[in-house]
């Protein structure tokens, strides 16, 4: 990433979208909208002083809502270009019409520019490579898996963030139910502190303890004072909050990290209701996540529920077997029918075991859904803009014998934009697409369409 950002032959237009493409192979004219980021990339040193001081906090989409970020932010720490961006909608100054300007004040480089506008950039290029990637299937449309309803059912991507040392839990497998619990406790704690502070002020002002005051107040002997009604309400509220907090804190104290994991394969893939195709990488992804979870805490056990465990790359089969032998991974053949939840927020997985030929169920600490790789939402729009055909699943159409060529000469596609694939294959394809692009550019005039 850093290499791409620094290469003198790469003109990086981040936070930009293609609006128009005209012309043909060898001489495309492309109009790109460079969106206003309200931060001057050239001046910004990426120091992050603005982030520290920004008063608006919003859900962090990089950590898939499991953490928070500020309105002025960097999508993720190692992002390139190493600069910031203001999310105008959530910014006090830009989106909410309030007076703020804190980030501009703290920025020593003078990079914050609230007046920045979208820019239209015209490019002339000989070939175009699409590397627009994919979206992760939203499993909430499968009601029987309970995603969104059962806290401890997460997607593989969410699980990845939980496992990450730089993620919201620093790599500990805290369960989302407990994270929610902690958030709830934090809110109540804050309320309680606020009430207590106010009560303390009143105690000081009137020179008596709340307990004494309440007794008098209830007996109607407290006398008359503008404060008393409020004092009584506050005291009641504080007592209530404290009462509510106690069981939550008890639960929190007893909480343990997730150690018994289930991975459900083919969530939204190989499923005629959603996507018929196989998403290719999820089997190995689940094995990897189970391995890492085990490395992190070697008490962890994982069950991977799958139809076929597809381990087809170099060393994959060996890795899978090693997982079974050394990382407490059990491969269960069978499609999961339903996930329910017990009182302690433990998900229960119901499935038909093809080995015992019976419907069985098992309780886990956390369930990870290996969600499908689906065409990114903007694919149809982009296809229309570029005049490209899509295949039956909605990915960019290519030919098996000319695997990088789209249906329009001079436009190539690589990676998951043409279908699900793993990292090495994507990287290899990226080079291949570059080869095809270079080929048409250097052969401009005598265009080679289709495979070489």
């Amino acid at each position, binding site marked *: 990433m850093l290499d791409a950002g620094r290469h003198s032959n790469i003109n990086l237009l981040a936070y930009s979208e293609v609006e128009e493409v005209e012309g043909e192979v060898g001489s495309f004219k492309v109009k790109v909208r460079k969106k206003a980021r309200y931060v001057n990339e050239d001046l910004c040193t990426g120091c992050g002083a603005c982030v520290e001081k920004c008063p608006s906090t919003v859900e962090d989409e990089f950590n898939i809502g499991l953490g928070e970020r500020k309105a002025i932010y960097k999508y993720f720490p190692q992002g390139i270009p190493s600069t910031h961006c203001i999310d105008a909608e959530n910014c006090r100054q830009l989106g909410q019409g309030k007076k703020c300007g804190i980030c501009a004040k703290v920025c020593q480089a003078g990079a914050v520019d609230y007046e920045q506008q979208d820019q239209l950039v015209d490019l002339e290029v000989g070939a175009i490579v699409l590397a627009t990637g994919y979206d992760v299937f939203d499993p909430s449309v499968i009601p029987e898996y309970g995603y969104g309803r059962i806290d401890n059912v997460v997607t593989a991507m969410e699980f990845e963030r939980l496992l990450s040392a730089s993620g919201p839990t620093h790599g500990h497998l805290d369960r989302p139910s407990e994270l929610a619990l902690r958030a709830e406790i934090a809110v109540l704690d804050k309320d309680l502190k606020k009430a207590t502070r106010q009560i303390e002020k009143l105690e000081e002002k009137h020179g008596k303890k709340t307990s004494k005051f309440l007794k008098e107040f209830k007996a109607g002997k407290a006398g008359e004072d503008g404060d008393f009604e409020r004092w009584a309400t506050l005291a009641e509220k504080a007592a209530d909050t404290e009462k509510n907090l106690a069981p939550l804190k008890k639960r929190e104290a007893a909480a343990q990290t997730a150690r018994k994991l289930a991975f459900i394969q083919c969530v939204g893939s190989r499923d005629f209701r959603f996507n018929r195709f196989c998403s290719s990488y999820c089997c190995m992804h689940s094995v990897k996540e189970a391995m890492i979870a085990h490395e992190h805490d070697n008490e962890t056990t994982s069950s991977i529920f799958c139809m076929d465990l597809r381990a087809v790359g170099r060393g994959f089969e060996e890795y899978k077997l090693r997982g079974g032998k050394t990382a407490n991974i059990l491969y269960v053949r069978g499609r999961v029918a339903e996930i329910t939840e017990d009182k302690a927020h433990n998900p229960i997985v119901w499935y038909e075991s093809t080995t015992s030929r019976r419907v069985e169920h098992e309780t886990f600490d956390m369930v990870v859904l290996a969600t499908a790789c689906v065409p990114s939402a903007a694919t149809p729009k982009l296809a229309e803009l570029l005049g490209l055909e899509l295949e039956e699943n909605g990915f960019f159409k290519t030919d*098996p014998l000319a695997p990088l060529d789209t249906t329009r000469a001079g436009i190539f596609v690589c990676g998951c934009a043409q279908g699900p694939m793993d990292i090495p294959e994507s990287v290899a394809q990226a080079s291949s697409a570059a080869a095809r692009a270079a080929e048409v550019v250097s052969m401009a005039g005598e265009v080679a369409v289709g495979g070489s």
Partner: protein
Amino acid sequence: MKRRSPRLRIAASPCHSFKWGMKLAKDIRIGVFVCDCGSNIAGYLDCPSIAEYAETLPNVVFVKENLYTCSEAGINEIKDAIKDENLNRVVVASCSPRTHEPLFRESCAEAGLNPYLFEMVNIRDQCSWVHMQEREEGNEKAKDLIRMGVAKATLLQPQEPIQSEMDPKSLVIGGGISGMTSALALANRGYQVYLIEKTKDLGGLLRNLSKLAPSNIDAKELIAKQVEAVKNHKNIQLFTSSTIKEIQGYIGHYDVTVSTNGTEEKFGVGVIIIATGARVFKPEGFFNYDGKRVITQFELEALFKSKKFKSKNVVMIQCVGARDEERKYCSRICCLTAIKNGIAIKEQNPEAKVHILYRDIQAYGTENEALYQRSKQLGVRYIKYDQEKPPEVLDNTVKVYHHLLGRELELEQDLVVLSTPLIAGEDNEELSKLLRVTLDENKFFLESHVKLKPLDFATDGVYLCGNAHYPATIREAISQALGAASRASIPLAKGTMTVEPIVSVLADEEACRGCGLCVALCPYGALEIAQTEKGRKVRVIPVACKGCGICAATCYVHALSINSYTDQQVEEQIRAFLSG
């Protein structure tokens, strides 16, 4: 480790009683620039005190604190000081060399100072950022780092970038679909390509196949089209029935000797692509394999091609000789071959029965899964078998334990087809030695990085694609072949290789005994033993070297060294650190 070790006595000692550097080196004039980075550094560290400290260090003649050393003003201050103060070493204490070292080096060069007389110290990431909460310690650590930087700077030597001309020609080894595709891709870019094929015909494994999945086109047609393109291309020189006799050299300069039926030819190339493919495993001793009633998928293809296929009850068995103790790996493509051939049988004769006995169906991706589903629609039946209870091939039946039914089935058959894995080419070991590239445990060629560099070798200038790397479908092989061509074209397009001079050097030729331990350990094939007037000596190939330093840390006579990371420089830094 954290600096404030229990030996606190040292920290309290006055900073001018240095043990290291001992004396002031003659004629060494070091300038130190301490960057505030706005408030990024100065907000947490006491930059003026750090600058003041730097002034007390030996050989330091000029110190300057900058608001932003990387700004135009800061850069100008460096340049001016080099001229005005006659500096011959520059140390900048600021941020990460990953982002800013090139800029500072360039600036030194612009002011007439050799850019390798520049040393960078990272007091932002390593001090102000990570020690925001312990400012005093962060401050002390910054001083330590600067002291170490200055100690090293004192010993720095000027270096010149290493340049090497590229021979713009290329060699592709293997004339299968991968090799032909790579050769064409390079030739179309205007590069001269030598394409070497061991057998007398181009086409590789494809020659034995009937139809290709999922495109359903005839393999013969595809080969014919590619062969014609290869043969007619003015930039491709084809050698069939030829083998590589010898390869010597390194990226940009390989001398290749090819032998064609005993006649040798020599030529030079700059880059090499390995596209040598793989072989089909012959399952002698498995499931009564006889090549007639019990055959391989490969042999089934031949029956299709010759139109001799007439069987009505076909049973296919997957993972024969794969995913077992001897060959642990999954060969990736055999499930697809079985599915494809199952469809072919059903299309030819819908009445024919096809049973595929499998362990996992590896129909990954969109097209393959679609093919799998289509085969089911056509009536191909799939039965999962357990490795522990493998099927049994009898005279006219195959016995298999059916998982879901929980009992054994006996399937009628008049033909059994075994799906066997692709295994590594027989010449792989020899070729890997010739080119100093690595093989995996199954003798397939091993790429440099499993995720990020799937088509490169650790050795620069050599690339790989297709079955030589690992079993691949046609789509994947073509894609990899184009990719390998793309990777190979990068140095070709540059014309000249320019390499950072931070590489291994034979600093003490006398000492070298030519033992070759370093050669064996070099991950990049950047060292070789050469016969010289003084006997066997190691020779460094600077353009291939990445400067990792394994050789220098291994050489017991300290003959090898790494520019800008010499033993002396590193040990001086260690001493400087510990004398604080």
